[in-house]
């Protein structure tokens, strides 16, 4: 497997400029001769589809939701980072780059991250031009807030609905291109396979979720922007429909999968309330600007929070990480919460929770100010829990939120399959072993608006302009395989529901491959998952028919892929014998902090599919640091 990252030569700060200056172009009259498929309409896919159409390419765009506006980027709450330095507090492109590399625990590629920091500034300009109503100061200029893992205020926001407003900006640009006839939109359509013809990504097989019809589409290049795989854990902050299918099928067609074990557990989510729980709800990281995290000092303390006096509370983040305090990065804040609960100091009915307390900031700033900043989040919390966070501290617990791993891409955002580009959360590129808050929105839009349009043009300039058709052996084979698989799932008619399998898989993953991992647990998971998968194919019950809207069938297909993918994650977690970022191996720690092994693991692990029933092969892309010194991450 060729893992050449194709990083342009020259100094770090000049790489992207020199790339753009040297990239091949497609002349305007020829652009309309190319067709590009974009799968997914979140921040990455939506912005990419709109921008490619604006440039003149023909775009076929797919999403499983009923409208592109509903992609899960919509749920991002807190904000988007950009190195604007509007606050004059010492921010710069270099500092955002450095914070991102360090936040990712030195497991991401320098050149990609620097480019991300560089274009972050254009994103804010573009979004403001589209009419995104970012928060502003009375003077009319843009407001900023702070986020975890940074000592500057560089996060732009639109109340607690930043993702929604950014996505609607991209969605509106996309709709404009649909009206202009440059994008053909396929909502309620799910990608079920990638077609590789003559060694190049040439199209996809999809299922129309309303009619059930399975058909193929051809293109000169395929872009996957299908998001992350957090739902492998069943319970996560992802939307119910978020899945790994598009990227996993691409993996099975030859795309290398990078660092699948790098998952982010978000520290501030509403704790689980019962076994009927269907998803977890995030409380934005921005709350940690004004909320203080604490747990009782003594274990088994069942008093209600207001009865616990100040000296018996442990503000553990402030205690352990005085310079970042409550704004320690996500992986560290999550693990600290787990530690407190493991020590029996957890709060709430099940003891799986800690407090996020606004008492002090309400006293300092007044309830009105807090309400202006976080009103909608407080309201959401109250709706779900029935408790009023203005009076009682919020109870929070970590939950699966984001996946740093994804399909491996080079500097062009191209996977190991030529012509297959992967953007946004679906790729592995920018966040290393841990993503900083407010950086997912930044990456999605950077890829879609400002990076892919250049790199894909560079690729297309070298590809024949002849029209493409969804015909030939490769298309036929892929389509037949999808049809067979669908028919097989409907025919089993066993005893267990799809959800019951998904929940069981999720529990294995959370227990053995969650916030803390160890060799014995991962080995156990690697035995349990194949057995569960086997049972699924014998005993799942999917009712209804293939030729109509069938939500159980949709779920079954996604869970079938999770049942394979979970194994890949555990294999990756087992072979990465170090702790870094969100990947915490209990065997590798010093005084409770992650112990990285740069001598042996300063690389991206990239997995290559070897065929049905065969173990995938592990390759590595060494991470070369030319500009920064690898250091032990310290937030103390």
């Amino acid at each position, binding site marked *: 497997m060729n893992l050449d990252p194709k990083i342009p030569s020259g100094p770090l700060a000049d790489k992207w400029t020199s790339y753009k200056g040297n990239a091949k172009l497609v002349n305007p009259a020829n652009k309309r001769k190319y067709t590009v498929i974009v799968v997914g309409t979140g921040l990455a896919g939506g912005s990419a589809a709109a921008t490619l159409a604006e440039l003149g390419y023909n775009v076929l765009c797919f999403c499983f939701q009923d409208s592109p506006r509903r992609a*899960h980027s919509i749920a991002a709450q807190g904000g988007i980072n950009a190195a604007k330095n509007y606050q004059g507090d010492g921010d710069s492109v270099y500092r955002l780059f450095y914070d991102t590399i360090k936040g990712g625990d030195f497991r991401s590629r320098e050149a990609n991250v620097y480019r991300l920091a560089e274009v972050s500034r254009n994103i804010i300009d573009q979004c403001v031009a589209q009419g995104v109503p970012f928060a*502003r100061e009375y003077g*009319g200029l843009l407001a900023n807030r702070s986020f975890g893992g940074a000592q500057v205020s560089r996060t732009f926001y639109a109340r607690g609905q930043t993702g929604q407003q950014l996505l609607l900006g991209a969605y*509106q640009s996309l709709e404009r291109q649909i009206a*202009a006839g440059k994008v053909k939109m396929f*909502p309620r359509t799910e990608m079920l396979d990638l077609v590789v013809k003559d060694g190049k990504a040439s199209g996809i097989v999809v299922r129309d979720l309303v009619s059930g019809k399975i058909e193929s589409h051809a293109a000169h290049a395929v872009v996957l922007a299908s998001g992350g795989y957090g739902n492998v854990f069943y319970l996560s902050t992802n939307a119910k429909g978020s899945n790994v299918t598009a990227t996993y099928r691409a993996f099975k067609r030859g795309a290398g999968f990078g660092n699948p074990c790098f998952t982010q557990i978000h520290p501030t989510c509403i704790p689980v309330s019962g076994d009927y729980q269907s998803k977890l709800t995030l409380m934005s990281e921005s709350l940690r600007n004004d909320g203080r995290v604490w747990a009782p000092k003594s274990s088994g303390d069942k008093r209600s929070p207001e009865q616990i006096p100040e000296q018996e509370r442990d503000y553990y983040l402030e205690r352990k990480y005085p310079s970042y305090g409550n704004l320690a990065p996500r992986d560290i804040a999550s693990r600290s919460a787990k530690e407190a609960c493991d020590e029996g100091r957890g709060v709430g009915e099940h003891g799986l929770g800690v407090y996020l307390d606004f008492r002090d900031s309400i006293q300092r700033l007044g309830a009105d100010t807090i309400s202006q900043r976080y009103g909608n989040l407080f309201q959401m919390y109250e709706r779900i829990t029935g408790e009023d966070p203005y009076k009682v501290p919020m109870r929070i617990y970590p939950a699966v939120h984001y996946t740093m791993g994804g399909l491996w891409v080079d500097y062009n955002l191209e996977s190991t399959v030529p012509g297959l580009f992967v953007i946004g959360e679906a790729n592995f590129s920018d966040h290393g072993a841990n993503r900083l808050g407010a950086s997912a929105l930044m990456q999605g839009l950077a890829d879609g608006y400002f990076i892919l349009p250049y790199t894909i043009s560079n690729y297309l300039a070298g590809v024949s302009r002849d029209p493409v058709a969804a015909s030939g052996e490769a298309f036929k084979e892929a389509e037949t395989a999808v049809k067979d698989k669908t028919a097989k799932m409907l025919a089993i008619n066993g005893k267990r529901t799809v959800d019951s399998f998904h929940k069981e898989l999720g529990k294995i993953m959370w227990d053995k491959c969650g916030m803390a991992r160890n060799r014995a647990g991962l080995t156990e998971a690697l035995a349990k998952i194949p057995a569960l998968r086997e049972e699924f194919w014998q005993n799942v019950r999917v*009712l209804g028919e293939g030729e109509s809207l069938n939500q159980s069938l949709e779920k079954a297909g996604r869970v079938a892929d999770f049942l394979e993918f979970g194994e890949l994650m555990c294999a990756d977690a087992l072979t990465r014998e170090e702790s870094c970022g969100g990947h915490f191996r209990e065997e590798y720690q010093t005084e409770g902090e992650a112990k990285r092994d740069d001598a042996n693991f300063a690389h991206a692990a990239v997995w290559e599919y070897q065929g049905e029933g065969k173990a995938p092969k592990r390759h590595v892309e060494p991470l070369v640091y030319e500009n920064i010194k690898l250091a032990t991450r310290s937030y103390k």
Partner: protein
Amino acid sequence: MKLKLHVWRQKNAKTQGKMVTYDAPNVSPHMSFLEMLDVVNEDLIAKGEEPIAFEHDCREGICGSCSLMINGVAHGPQKATTTCQLHMRTFKDGDEIYIEPWRAKAFPIIKDLVVDRSAFDRIIQAGGYVSVNAGGAQDANCLPVPKDTADQAMDAAQCIGCGACVAACKNASAMLFTSAKVSHLGLLPQGQPERQRRALNMVQQMDKEGFGNCTNQYECEAVCPKEISVRFIARMNRDYLNASICGSGPEKKAGGGED
């Protein structure tokens, strides 16, 4: 809690639907409304009956997918709350609950509780954007926007496009949805160049899709999970009137990327 549910079942767009009654014997007050339906569905599958199809995705009140008439009220009894955020503690033991899809000609039923809301996308296509290509936009702080204006624009921009406003309206009017986008963009300086044509084209498209007119009953505002205000409808009417009188004649279709 024990509940009795009356649910609209309809196999597809072509067949006749009907209300079917189900028992929900083990409902926890901490469940969300959709989690309650999940449990009912698991039981149905166990019995060999096809589960109830309903739309949902983010389950945190922002994607706008969920869409149920609960006892005749869009998104149910709790104010400013989507169905997915509605929790069963709002109901009491022994309650009977009637669950229906959005009812509007412009939102045809696909199956059970799932309707087709693509008309909303087409309204946005008619002009719900600022025509600006990705590229060299000027520095974001070059154009100060008064905080009050930005806040008002955000009040309108919060719309999640769920369609509750249409479902609640006796005329199945989409005025609240359309006016929210017209106002969001019309309030901001970036939206001024296209303000007139946007109002005209979006209203025209709304009519073409078969949505009814507004007769000022404010049912839409009452059920809107984001509490979008009906004053935006008044604002859109002013923009529309202004554009109709002062507008620059028949509308050409907005251009794409061909220039």
